[in-house]
C-alpha cells in the first residue's frame, strides 16, 4: 500500500501550498503592482498597466517555449558533444538514415489515415447521432475514450490485438472475430509489417473520433433547420441534402478539426512508444527523437529531428494564423 | 449649475472619417434636450464624448463652467443609461444599484438610503433581490434608470433607452420618463433616432445628420420652421411632400400646379414643401391640386391620400368621412399659409 503517512507529512503540505499559495501570490503581485501603477501620472497608467498583467505569463512562455525553441535549433547545428558547430551535417545524416526515412514514411501514414478516418467517423457519428432521440448517451459513450490516457488506450488495444498461434483459442477480440467469423488465420497485428502501422493508428482514431464528433455535432446543430426544410420542400433527398447543404456548411469546422488532427498526427508518441517502442518498422519521428537523445545520447541529431517536426508543422501553423487574422478582421 | 456646452466639438477617427463635425450646442440647466437623427449621424458619439467614453478630437465640452475634456468619466458627475441597459447579470437589482455608490466609497447607510429611494420612485421595491434575467425588459430598464438616479448626478445621459421595448411599453415609458424628469429637476440629454420620441419628449430638439448639426429648437419651432430640407423631411409623420419648382416673378411653378409666394426669393429653382395637413379637401382660391389617388390610408381619426399631382407625388390629409377609392381623381386645396421653400442647391429654407 502506498505510504500514506509519508504522503501526508511530506507531500500534502507542498500540495496545499502550491494550490492555494500560488494563486494568492499571483493575486498579491497584481494588487501590489496595481498600487504602484496608480501612483504614476494618469496618462502613463494605461500604458504601463497591461505589462504587469501579461508579464508573468509572458515570462513563462518565453522561458519554456520561445527560448527552448531557438535553443533546439541551435543545438541541432552542433555536434554530439555540443562543442563544435557542424552546420547542417546533422540534418544530412538524419535525412539519409534509413531508420529516419522510415519514420517519415510512417508519420505520413499517420497524417493521412489518422486525420481522414477520424474526420470520417466523426462526421458520420455526428450526423447519425443527431437523428436519434438517445443522442446524448451515444455521444457520451463514443466520446469517453477522450478521457483516458493514450497509455491506457494502448493497454486496452494490446488486449484487443492479442495473438495466439493458428488453431489455438484466440483470446484477442479481433483475432477471435477473424477466425470464427471470417475463417482466416489470426494476424500478429503488432508485429506484422503489413498491418501494424494501421493497427497503431486505429488506436488513435478510436480515441479521438469523439473529439471530432463533438465539434462537428455542435457545428451541425448550428445549421439553421430552415435550410434543411427548404431543401426538402425543394425535393432534395437526404443524401443530396447532406452533400450539397450540410457538408459545405460544415467545411469551415472540418478544416479547423483537420488542422488540430494533423498537428496531433505529427506529434504522436505515446501509442507507438508503449505498444512497439518503434520496433517492427512502426517508428515515428517523435519516438525517434526521444531515442536519439536518451538512448544514443546525440542531442545534435535529436534536435535535427525535432526541427524536422517543426518544419512539417509550419504549413499548418501558417494556415492557422491566416484563419485567425481573417477572423479578427471580421470582428 | 448643470448646463452642458458643446463648443466646436469634433470627433475624427482617421483623416477620412470624421463622425462629428463642428458641433455647437448649449443645453440649459434642467432642460430635456433630445439629440435626434438617422443611424450613423453622430448623435451617440456626441453623447459618449460628453460621457467620457470617447476622446474629443477638437473643441471643448463644458459641464457648468467646468471644462471636462480631460476629466475621467467617473469624475464628471454624470450618469448614463445604456441602450442595452448594461446591468451586471450576476448581481441582484439592489447590488446593481448599489455598485456605483460602493465605488464612491459611500457609507453603507447612505447607500441603503439612496437605493431604497430610487427603488421607491421606480416601483422596484418587490424586485430588489432578483437578478436581471428574472426581470422583464421594462423592469430592466427601470433598474438601469435606478442605477443612474442613485448617483444624484448633474446630468442624465440616455442612449436610445426605449428602442428595446415593444410599442405599447414604449408609449408608457415615454410618459414615465417625462414625469421622472419633472420630479428630478435635472438636465436630461436623450439620444434617439425616433422623431416621434423627440417631438413628444424634448423641451428642445437638436437634429443631426452625417455628423453635422442641422437645427436646434423647440419642437414647435422645428416643425413650423425647419431650417433645411433634411429637417423638414425628417420631422413629421407622414413626411412632408416635396415638389421641385421653378421660381419666376414670385410664383413657384410645379409640374401640376402653380402657387404665388408670399415674398420674393433670389433663387431660380427650388423645392416646395408642404405637410399633409396643408393639403385638404377644403377648396382653396389660391392653389388647387388635381390628384390621381394611388394609395388610401384610413386610420379612423385621419385619412391620408397618396397620389400624383402632375408628375409629383403628394400626401394629403382629408376628412376621414370622405369616400375615396384608389384611382379616383380628386381636387384638393393647398393652404399657402404653411408653405416651405428650399433652395435647389443649398437646401436651406427660403421662406
Amino acid at each position, binding site marked *: *500500500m*502506498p*505510504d500514506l503517512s509519508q*504522503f501526508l507529512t511530506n507531500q500534502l503540505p507542498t500540495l496545499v501550498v*502550491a494550490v492555494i499559495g500560488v*494563486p494568492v501570490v499571483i493575486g498579491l503581485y497584481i494588487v501590489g503592482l496595481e498600487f504602484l501603477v496608480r501612483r504614476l501620472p494618469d496618462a502613463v497608467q494605461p*500604458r504601463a498597466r*497591461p505589462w504587469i*498583467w*501579461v508579464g*508573468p*505569463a*509572458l515570462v*513563462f*512562455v518565453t522561458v*519554456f*517555449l520561445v527560448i*527552448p525553441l531557438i*535553443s533546439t535549433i541551435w*543545438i541541432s547545428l552542433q555536434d554530439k558533444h555540443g562543442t563544435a558547430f557542424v552546420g547542417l551535417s546533422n540534418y544530412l545524416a538524419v535525412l539519409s538514415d534509413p531508420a529516419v526515412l522510415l519514420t517519415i514514411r510512417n508519420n505520413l501514414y499517420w497524417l493521412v489515415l489518422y486525420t481522414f478516418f477520424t474526420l470520417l467517423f466523426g462526421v458520420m457519428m455526428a450526423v*447519425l*447521432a443527431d437523428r436519434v432521440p438517445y443522442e446524448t448517451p451515444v455521444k457520451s459513450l*463514443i466520446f469517453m*475514450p*477522450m*478521457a*483516458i*490516457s*493514450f497509455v*491506457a488506450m494502448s*493497454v*486496452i488495444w*494490446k*488486449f484487443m490485438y492479442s495473438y495466439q498461434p493458428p488453431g489455438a*483459442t484466440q*483470446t484477442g477480440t479481433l483475432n477471435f472475430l477473424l477466425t470464427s467469423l471470417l475463417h482466416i488465420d489470426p494476424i500478429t497485428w503488432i508485429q506484422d509489417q503489413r498491418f501494424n502501422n494501421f493497427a497503431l493508428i486505429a488506436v488513435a482514431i478510436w480515441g479521438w473520433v469523439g*473529439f471530432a464528433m463533438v*465539434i462537428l455535432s455542435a457545428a451541425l446543430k*448550428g445549421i439553421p433547420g430552415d435550410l434543411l426544410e427548404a431543401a426538402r420542400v425543394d425535393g432534395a433527398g437526404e443524401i443530396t441534402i447532406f452533400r450539397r447543404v450540410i457538408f459545405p456548411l460544415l467545411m469551415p*469546422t472540418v478544416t479547423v478539426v483537420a488542422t488540430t488532427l494533423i498537428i496531433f498526427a*505529427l*506529434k504522436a508518441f*505515446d501509442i507507438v*512508444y*508503449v505498444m512497439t517502442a518503434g520496433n517492427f518498422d512502426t517508428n515515428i519521428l517523435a519516438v525517434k527523437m526521444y531515442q536519439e*537523445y536518451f538512448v544514443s545520447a546525440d542531442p545534435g541529431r535529436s534536435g535535427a529531428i*525535432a526541427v524536422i517536426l517543426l518544419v512539417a508543422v509550419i504549413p499548418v501553423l501558417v494556415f492557422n494564423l491566416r484563419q*485567425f487574422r481573417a477572423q479578427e478582421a471580421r470582428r | 449649475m448643470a448646463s452642458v456646452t458643446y463648443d466646436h466639438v469634433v470627433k475624427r477617427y482617421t483623416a477620412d472619417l470624421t463622425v462629428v463635425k463642428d458641433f455647437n450646442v448649449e443645453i440649459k440647466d434642467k432642460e430635456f434636450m433630445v439629440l435626434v437623427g438617422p443611424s450613423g449621424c453622430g448623435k451617440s458619439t456626441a453623447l459618449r464624448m460628453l*460621457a*467620457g*467614453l470617447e476622446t474629443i478630437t477638437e473643441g471643448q465640452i463644458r459641464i457648468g463652467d467646468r471644462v471636462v475634456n480631460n476629466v475621467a*468619466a467617473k469624475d464628471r458627475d454624470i450618469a448614463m443609461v*445604456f441602450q*442595452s441597459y*448594461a446591468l451586471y447579470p*450576476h448581481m441582484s437589482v439592489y447590488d446593481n444599484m448599489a*455598485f456605483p455608490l460602493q*465605488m*464612491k466609497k459611500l457609507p453603507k447607510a447612505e447607500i441603503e438610503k439612496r437605493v431604497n429611494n430610487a427603488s421607491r420612485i421606480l416601483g422596484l421595491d418587490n424586485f430588489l433581490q432578483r437578478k436581471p434575467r428574472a426581470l422583464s425588459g421594462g423592469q430592466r430598464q427601470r433598474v438601469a434608470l435606478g*442605477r443612474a438616479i442613485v448617483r444624484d448626478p448633474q446630468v442624465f445621459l440616455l442612449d436610445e433607452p426605449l428602442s428595446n421595448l415593444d410599442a405599447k411599453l414604449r408609449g408608457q415609458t415615454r410618459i414615465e420618463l417625462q414625469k421622472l424628469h419633472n420630479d428630478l429637476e435635472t438636465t436630461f440629454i436623450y439620444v434617439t433616432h425616433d422623431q416621434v420620441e423627440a417631438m413628444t419628449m424634448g423641451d428642445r430638439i437638436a437634429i443631426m445628420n452625417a455628423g453635422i448639426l442641422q437645427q436646434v429648437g423647440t419642437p414647435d419651432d422645428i416643425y413650423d420652421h425647419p431650417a433645411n430640407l433634411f429637417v423638414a423631411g425628417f420631422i413629421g409623420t407622414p413626411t412632408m411632400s416635396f415638389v421641385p419648382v421653378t421660381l419666376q416673378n414670385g410664383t413657384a411653378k410645379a409640374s401640376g400646379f402653380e402657387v404665388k409666394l408670399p415674398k420674393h426669393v433670389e433663387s431660380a429653382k427650388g423645392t416646395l414643401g408642404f405637410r399633409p395637413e396643408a393639403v385638404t379637401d377644403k377648396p382653396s382660391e389660391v392653389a388647387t391640386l388635381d390628384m390621381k389617388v394611388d394609395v388610401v390610408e384610413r386610420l379612423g381619426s385621419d385619412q391620408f391620400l397618396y397620389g400624383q399631382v402632375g408628375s409629383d407625388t403628394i400626401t394629403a390629409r382629408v376628412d376621414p368621412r370622405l369616400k375615396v377609392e384608389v384611382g379616383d381623381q380628386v381636387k384638393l386645396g393647398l393652404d399657402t399659409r404653411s408653405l416651405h421653400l428650399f433652395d435647389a442647391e443649398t437646401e436651406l429654407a427660403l421662406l
Partner: protein
Amino acid sequence: MSVMAQERIEAPAWSARWLADRLGGVALHVAVIGLTIAWMVPTLGLFVSSFRHLTDISNTGWWTALSPPFNFTVENYSKVLAQNNLGTSFLNSIMITIPATIIPAALAAFAAYAFSWMKFWGRDILFLALVGLLAVPLQLTFIPVLKMFNSVGLSGTFLGIWLAHTGYGLPFAIYLLANFFRSLPTDLFESAEMDGASTLTVFFRIVLPLSVPAIASLVIFQFLWIWNDFLVALIYLGGTPPVAPMTVTVANLVNSLGSGYHLLTAAAFLSMIVPLIVFFSLQRFFVRGILAGSVKG
C-alpha cells in the same frame, strides 16, 4: 359518396415509400447502436479481463466470462496495488496534476484579461504569436529545458514539472479565456468605468464571476490533459518510481510484466478511474473546453 372518396385519399399502409421510410428508420437505429456498442467493446474487454484470473485470461477470450460459470476475482487489483507502486503513482499523479492545472489557469486569467480589454503596444502581435505557439510540438523544447532543469536541480522534482506544464499550457489557456472575455458586452465595461470601478474591481467583481463556466472548462480540460500526459512526465521526471505518475508506471508495466500481464489490466483501469469520474460528472465543461474556438463558420 364523400366517405368513399375520403378512404381513397389515404395511401394504402404497405406502399413502397412507407416501407423504405420504416426500414430506413430501423437501419439508422441499428447502425447507431451497433457502432456505439462496437466502440465500447475494447474498453469493456479490458474491464472484464481485469476481474479474471491469469489462467483464464491466457486461455480464453474475455467474452466467455460473461456467461456462467462466472470466475471473477479482485486479486489483480489487490496485487497490483500492493507490489507495483500503483498507490504511490496515484498520489504522484495528484501531486503533479492539481498545481499544474491551477497555476496556468491563474496566470492565464490575468493575461487574458489584458489581451481582451486593455490596449497596449504589441498586443495584437503577441496574441498572434501565442496562437502560433499553439501548433508548435513540445519536442522542440525538451532538450534545452531538460538541460536547464538538470543544471538547477529541478529535474525529477514536482516543482520542475509544474513549471514546465505551466509554460506549455499557457497558450491554450490564454486563448480560451481571451476569447471568452472578449465576448462579454462592451457596455458592461463602459458602465463600470462610469461608475468609477478600477481595473482590479472590474476584474474581480465583474469579469471573474461572469467567467466561471469558461474557467471551469479550462480547469477540467487542463486537469484531464495533465493527468493523462505521458511524454512530459517521462522526460522531466525520468521514469523514476518515487515520482512517476500513473501513466508512466502503467507504461513500464506493459513491458516489464512479461507473464504477469493480468496485472496490467487492473493497473490500466486504476489509472482510468479518476479521469472517468471527472469526465462523466463534468462532461459539459470538458466539451465546452474543446469547443472553445473550434466551431467555425
